[in-house]
């Protein structure tokens, strides 16, 4: 009897406290602090930590920003985001997105337009490169946090000025190799992955063509510039300008080769600059950057690869989220991200600031590259198109097929993909 009572009293206590907490917690926190959660890849979550702290101090009474530190790799973060978006109820309000995901995400209906948050003059403040890749079908869905652009790194101790044409690059490399200055001329991302598409885009545009013409819906891969680009890259390996192993090189392997002083040129992103100035770099202080080489008569081209914020549909704190976007992408934040972590700024005013130019003379080259920034095809089926290009180009690079045939195959498969996509879109 006694025991039974004890059980009852324990049960009642637990039950009561549960009911009380359900009633009390919401009323106690009713000061309307809006929680905002953003999913970011690990490196960005780390580098924005101080900014987030500042934001939470400034908006102490109204918004609390929380960053979810996602995986390190670009594609792993996409997998995580997509898995939760597919379930319909995401635990985050916003997502830091890579430039190539936007059409796919927008088309899937996962994104909320940002047109109310940012206007024409905000967009005009951005550099050309940072203006690209934020819209889908004319609607703004993404606001850039950092710009990113493909660059040619060269050795200032081996030459006076960087080459400007593909032939020149080969000639300089061959000369340096013959004089035993460097084992290799040029290293780039030749592994069958997204980086290879970026390398190729710069070359096909540099030879005066284009990968995809959005107005006509046609592919230029099997046209002369497309084949020339594939042939040039294949020849680099054949003629020993690039190591044969470049066919499995991603950014890290390329950086390793250039950093140890084994090559005269490297294609990479701006993050490499800071890496090359570190203690363990053998080329510290001997590195210059430039835009990618282009054939005579064609304009040089740089692949744009920026990261930006997107607001997810279903977020209950839209205005607070946009407030957070504005804070994290403000000029002050951009300067902090650049000076502390070397992230490429998105705002024109930073590149045109004389004090900045004096302090960091190399940013003029970043600015130049951003002006000739090019987009990879902007379509929801981009991942398929890029995959087809990578497969076929890899076949050319490894001598399984000739450049001409591989690019012909790439074109016909790409056309089929677009046809299937068009058929379903109607």
């Amino acid at each position, binding site marked *: 009897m006694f025991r039974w009572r004890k059980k009852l009293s324990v049960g009642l206590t637990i039950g009561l406290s549960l009911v009380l907490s359900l009633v009390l917690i919401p009323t106690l926190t009713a000061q309307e602090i809006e929680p905002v959660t953003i999913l970011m890849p690990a490196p960005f979550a780390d580098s924005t930590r101080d900014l987030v702290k500042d934001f939470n101090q400034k908006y102490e009474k109204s918004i609390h920003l929380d960053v979810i530190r996602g995986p390190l790799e670009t594609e792993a973060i996409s997998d995580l985001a*997509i898995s939760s978006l597919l379930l319909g109820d995401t635990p985050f309000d916003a997502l830091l997105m890579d430039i190539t995901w936007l059409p796919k995400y927008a088309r899937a209906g996962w994104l909320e337009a940002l047109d109310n948050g940012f206007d024409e003059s905000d967009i005009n403040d951005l550099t050309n490169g940072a203006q690209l890749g934020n819209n889908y079908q004319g609607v703004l869905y993404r606001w850039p946090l950092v710009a990113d652009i493909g660059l040619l790194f060269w050795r200032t101790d081996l030459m006076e000025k960087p080459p400007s044409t593909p032939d020149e690059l080969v000639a300089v490399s061959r000369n340096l190799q013959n004089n035993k200055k460097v084992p290799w001329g040029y290293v780039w991302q030749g592994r069958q*992955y997204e980086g290879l598409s970026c390398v190729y885009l710069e070359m096909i545009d540099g030879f005066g063509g284009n990968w995809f013409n959005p107005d006509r819906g046609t592919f230029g891969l099997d046209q002369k510039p497309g084949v020339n680009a594939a042939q040039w890259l294949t020849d680099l390996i054949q003629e020993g300008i690039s190591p044969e192993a470049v066919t*499995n090189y991603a950014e890290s392997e390329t950086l390793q080769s250039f950093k140890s002083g084994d090559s005269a040129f490297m294609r990479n992103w701006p993050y490499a600059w800071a890496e090359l100035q570190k203690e363990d770099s053998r080329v510290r202080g001997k590195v210059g950057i430039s835009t990618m080489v282009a054939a005579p008569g064609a304009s040089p081209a740089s692949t744009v690869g920026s990261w930006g914020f997107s607001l997810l549909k279903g977020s209950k704190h839209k205005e607070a989220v946009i407030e957070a976007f504005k804070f994290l992408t403000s000029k002050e934040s951009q300067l902090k991200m650049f000076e502390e972590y070397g992230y490429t700024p998105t705002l024109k005013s930073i590149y045109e600031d004389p004090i900045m130019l004096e302090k960091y003379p190399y940013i003029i080259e970043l600015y130049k590259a951003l002006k000739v920034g090019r987009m990879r095809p902007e379509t929801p089926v981009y*991942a398929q198109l890029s995959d087809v290009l990578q*497969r076929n180009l890899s076949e050319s690079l490894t001598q399984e097929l000739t450049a001409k045939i591989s690019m012909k195959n790439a074109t016909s498969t790409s056309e089929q993909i677009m046809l299937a996509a068009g058929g379903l879109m109607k």
Partner: protein
Amino acid sequence: MTVVYLLIPAFLLLASVFGLPLLRYAWLSFHADSVLTGLQPIANDGANWLRLMHDQRYWQDLIQTLRFAFASVGFELLLGLAIALLLHQPMRKRGLIRSAALIPWALPTTVMALGWRWIFNTPYGPIDQFTSLSGISLNILGNPSFAWIALVYADVWKTTPFVALILLAGLQSIPNDLYEACTLEGASSFTCFRKITLPLLKPYLGLAMTFRLAQAFGVFDLVQVMTGGGPASSTESLALYAYWNALRFLDFGYSATIMIASFVLLSTIVAFGWWLMILLNQRGSMAVTE
């Protein structure tokens, strides 16, 4: 009769964990469900299956996956048997040595795959550093004819301990008096191995083979990290292709088709392996009674 009723909870659990997803995928494989359909399933009269029939990439990946699976499982069984025999010998600190042999198996695949990617790296990996002493640079991971061998090598390194463990358990189940009788009859140790160890180990060999074939057929993380399926798609596996379709292309209909087709094929292979095992098992017990 009550025994059957007691099995119901377990059966329901299995059905909900394995059965339902399979049925859902089988259903999805007859629908277009991609980013272009707004992620809504639309019946498409078996168009996915027609596409699969003509999809050269699927068949190429199938051959590559089978090549990988049989090569790696074959080596693992041979090496695993050798290691198991070694670990079965009485020696000092046997417990310590046995646990040490398991270390590769305990490592997460992604971690060890990243390690192997750098070991095979040309020119900074130790393998290339070694071969280049004699002036040869193999460029294994960058060559479409050899890259898959590097994958087999890494897989064998990682999963041989697992095979060895199963076989070691098998060796321990063989009663010692059989060997005593064998030596008493004056048979050589090789004859004892051939007449006693091997026949009695057959069910364990079959078990290890079935487990490993099923795993190797679904290889994903190793390939994803070491080569990403390249160069020239020479190492792409079926699991990788299905993953690309689902999460990169957001084409769930076709991804489901690839998975169901692979599931049917894999089940056939495993069923065949199982049948082979039973067959060998019968023969094995006969050999002992002879």
